[in-house]
């Protein structure tokens, strides 16, 4: 039992090292075209600010809805933009996983002595995502009190939020194992997730609430973490942690099923 745990820890540590290295490498490569990098980051910050501005006007006009106002909107964005930033900056290929699978691109990663999925995901960085990250941090610093609790929860919340988003990317990407080239479906689903996590959809009632938690898990990814930023609530915290872990496990399970199909070679037609 001890040996197993030690092995697990060392694998995690090695992979963590690998991810850190790749991230630094990707960032360094991006710096070759420094101007382009800063331009993308800068404009993404502007982009997110404009989006938030849209909702500012909304709440200016309508006031708070069931206690949900602009401050809550910012909290949501800290986690929506934050998780989007973290995931796409480090795992820059997350959005391309579906394409990689349908093009037979996974084969390349099998030849290396690293977990192929991890490798495929980290081998690229999305430059503008760094802008989302900086925006999220700025929003936090400017609009929320910097207490020990809020700073700690920022990091922890970002972690679980990103875990859910990353799982969702992998889940949607895995569809390619069965459907082949499916760019339109992929984009519609990802777009839906991001839209849900960045609208004040947490105010909805009834059946829709179920929808935004369990059909597109934006609720767990952004709304609960956002609420927890303002005040701690044990039940919400547990929901977030448990859901993200279970969702991740389910996603990996589905991915592996797809992988088995892929490796059986029955997908030759997909690769053409």
């Amino acid at each position, binding site marked *: 039992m001890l040996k197993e745990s030690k092995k697990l820890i060392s694998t995690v540590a090695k992979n963590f090292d690998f991810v850190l290295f790749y991230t630094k490498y990707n960032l360094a490569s991006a710096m*070759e075209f*420094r*101007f382009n990098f*800063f331009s993308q980051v800068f404009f993404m910050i502007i982009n997110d600010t404009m989006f938030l501005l849209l909702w500012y006007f909304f709440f200016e006009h309508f006031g708070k809805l069931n206690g949900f106002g602009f401050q809550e909107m910012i909290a949501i964005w800290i986690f929506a933009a934050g998780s989007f930033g973290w995931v796409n900056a480090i795992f820059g290929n997350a959005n391309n996983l579906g394409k990689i699978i349908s093009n037979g691109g996974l084969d390349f990663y099998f030849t290396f002595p690293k977990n192929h999925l991890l490798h495929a995901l980290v081998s690229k960085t999305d430059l503008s995502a760094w802008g989302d990250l900086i925006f999220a941090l700025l929003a936090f610093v400017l609009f929320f009190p910097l207490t020990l609790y809020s700073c700690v929860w920022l990091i922890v919340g970002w972690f679980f939020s990103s875990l859910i988003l990353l799982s969702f990317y992998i889940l949607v990407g895995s569809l390619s194992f069965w459907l082949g080239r499916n760019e339109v479906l992929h984009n519609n689903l990802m777009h839906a997730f991001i839209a849900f996590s960045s609208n004040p959809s947490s105010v909805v009632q009834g059946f829709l609430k179920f929808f935004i938690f369990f059909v597109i898990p934006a609720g767990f990814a952004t709304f609960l973490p956002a609420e927890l930023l303002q005040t701690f609530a044990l039940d919400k915290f547990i929901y977030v942690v448990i859901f993200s872990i279970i969702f991740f496990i389910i996603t990996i399970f589905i991915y592996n099923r797809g992988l088995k199909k892929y490796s059986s070679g029955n997908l030759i037609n997909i690769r053409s």
Partner: protein
Amino acid sequence: MEKIIEVKNLNKEFTSKIKLSGFRNSLKALFKPEYQQMKAVDNISFSVAKGEKVAFIGPNGAGKSTTIKMLTGILYPSSGEIRVDNLVPWQDRKKLAFKIGTVFGQKPQLWYHLPAMDTFYLFGKIYELDQAKFQKRLNFLIDKFQVREFVNQPVRKLSLGQRMRCEMIASLIHQPKILFLDEPTIGLDVVAKQQLREVLNLMNKEEETTIFITSHDAGDLEKIADRVIVIDRGRVIFDGTVKNFKDKYAWYKLIDLELADNHASEKLNLRGVKILAQDKLSLKLEVDIKKISVKEVIDKLLNIYQIADITIAEMPMEEIIANIYEQNLQKIK
């Protein structure tokens, strides 16, 4: 003979911003940019007669693409004259567009998800062709290029060779007088290349279509062209027939031998044969084909050695051209 392309003292210079690395330099470049001039085409002149098949070759960056872009009206020259079918390309661009066909290897014209037939009909409209004439022409081309079987299948389902034949039809629908091809055989397999060349020769024979092709491929040179223009560093360094080209510049062949044993009945001593490398069971020879024929050499080799395998290679195209350039450089010096 009627000259369909005339190029006189053509020059093209490009200005580009000097971009140094580093953030500070990027900022500087934004506010106080520095430029450098690059001469892509340096005083070239040539002419092409109607119905000729010209291969326009040279190493990368020699100015081939730039020249062809000026001939088709995409770029205009810094100085010099060009006349294509008596039109000045960059001035009468749209008029010229009706008379020329283009095949740019890197940029396919067929809509990928639709059958080639749809693209053909589209081109019919783009080139403003009369309906009846268009139909007749289309049927003629489809039969000649033998694509009827798959012309109604989505292009993405076709093999490269089939796709190429359809690309050719698309560029020939409006019966252009000249066909400009820029690296059309790039990435094609042997069969596809062969099909393409057959089709080009066919059009040239049947309709006197002038063919102007830039290429890196020795096969294009040998199987299509009757004339070769070699360009390097923006200058023409050879302009003549393919035969002259080979006679003048391809002077050796390589013979690679694998021996069954290292027993030689006599020493190899032939005039014009140089031993490049020798091992226990292998031998690499350079044969100067101006001094001795390959047949003679092989006859001798069969007598001397126990041969397990033999490979004969031509002097690589790159080397031929590099050789030409060397000679050119010597001449300058």
